[in-house]
């Protein structure tokens, strides 16, 4: 116990240490190349304070964050609701797989960002295309992970269920789906980071609100502290999303152990 606490403390000190080194290097680098190319940490903090207390493009920073989050979460839920059942169907029913897989395989390798023009062509501007882009990104991951999980379900398990006289339906709901949960959950995390990346891409290409817009503003105004504050905000939200998902996962599936 004492050892573990000591190791934990050591790790924390290490983390602090590495950040201190990082900040120091940042400061030195910014002095070396000039604050134009790389603003110092202090500049960034000052800018952050200003940005979070004033309005950008007629909205506060919190509103921008809200807009981005709304898009991501909406698209993500939609993707989960549609992608997981599709993956299950593809993994379970051979006929369905043969029909759906080729089309899925045709569209799957197209990166979500490449869908942007088509999304605008079909859905115009506004929330539609942005949600659509995030949806495409998360959907593919949900389907892939669910499908992989289903396909690699241990056949022994299903055979065991069959010998107990389980119906096809019971085999699916009591054996195959629970057995593919780990793979599905791996997708849960990946799909979120993909959706988060996609919302940025969508906002970078055209939006009036959202955190991606902040970065584009920073670039258009040639204001590098603003860009960096935007990036840090994005990173923090990404982290927040990942952590809350992990927490949710622990809550829902306490049996899953994680590799440290």
């Amino acid at each position, binding site marked *: 116990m004492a050892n573990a606490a000591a190791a934990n403390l050591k790790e924390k000190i290490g983390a602090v240490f590495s950040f201190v080194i990082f900040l120091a290097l940042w400061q030195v680098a910014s002095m070396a190349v000039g604050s134009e190319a790389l603003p110092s940490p202090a500049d960034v903090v000052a800018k952050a304070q200003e940005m979070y207390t004033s309005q950008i493009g007629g909205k506060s920073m919190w509103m921008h964050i809200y807009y981005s989050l709304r898009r991501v979460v909406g698209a993500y839920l939609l993707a989960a609701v549609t992608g997981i059942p599709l993956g299950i169907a593809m993994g379970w029913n051979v006929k369905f797989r043969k029909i759906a897989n080729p089309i899925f395989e045709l569209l799957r390798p*197209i990166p979500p960002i*490449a869908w942007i023009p088509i999304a605008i062509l079909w859905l115009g501007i506004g929330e539609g295309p942005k949600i659509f882009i995030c949806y495409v990104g998360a959907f593919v991951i949900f389907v892939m992970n669910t499908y992989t999980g289903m396909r690699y379900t241990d056949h022994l398990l299903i055979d065991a269920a069959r010998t107990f006289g389980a119906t096809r339906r019971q085999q699916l709901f009591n054996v195959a789906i629970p057995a593919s949960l780990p793979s599905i959950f791996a997708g849960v995390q990946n799909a979120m980071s993909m959706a988060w990346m996609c919302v940025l891409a969508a906002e970078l290409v055209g939006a009036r609100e959202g955190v991606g817009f902040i970065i584009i503003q920073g670039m258009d105004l040639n204001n590098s502290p603003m860009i960096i504050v935007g990036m840090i905000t994005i*990173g923090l939200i990404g982290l927040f999303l990942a952590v809350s998902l992990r927490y949710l996962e622990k809550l829902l599936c306490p049996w899953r152990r994680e590799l440290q």
Partner: protein
Amino acid sequence: MSTAHASALEAPATSRVKGYWKEYNSSVFSLLVFLLIWELVCRLGFISRFQLVPPSEVIVVMIEKFWTAPPDGATLFTHIAASMTLALVGFCAAVVVGVPLGLLMGWYKPVMVLVRPLFDAVRPIPPIAWIPLAILWLGIGIEAKAFIIWLAAFVPCVINSYIGIKLTNPVLIRVARIYGASNWETFIKIGVPSAVPMIFTGLKLSLNAAWTTLVAAELLAASEGLGYMIQMGRRLARPDIIIVGMLTIGFTGALMSYVLTKIESRIASSRRL
């Protein structure tokens, strides 16, 4: 005599073809139906031809694009070559840096304690958010674009190498230790080889990430490449060019991961992993 021989040889071949056909007929059928519906939706005017181009036209444009440069300024091959170069440069750089870093993080505690916090801090920032800084720091040449792709490909490389080496069978580590191997030697002779399968999984994810980010990277100062082609399609309001660009990205990406999978299975089978 010879005819009997020939038919005996042919029989398995035809049955193999039949087998393939049986395996894939419904897939081929479903693709054809998909294309047919797509064609009809466009032809019958359910969707305006400015929003979606029928597949027949897409194919024509795609074939044309193999040797004609207008309207986007380069042939399809030029675009593919440019994009692939870019993606592979970023990908290779990510592998060269990311895999050793992940391995060292998994093996040496101090490396992990120092690097992990920074890595965790940078990781949630999507690569495309770096575009403005990439321009600022690296300009508008291939460096900035490769940097964006590098960032995208770097993360799975590190994570998978890290997990791979963490999963090294402890018994094997002890085997090396008992023979008096140093920590470094154990790392090289036991840790690294045992992480190889995970590293390969990471490489596939990496390549995928690299290719996904490509379009975003090519939004940034490019005069050729598939992302640029799509961009030109937008400026010229040419949905056919956009769709050809999208499909080409899809095909090329799928082809590249197929090649990597082949390489992997070749290496794996030579080592019987």
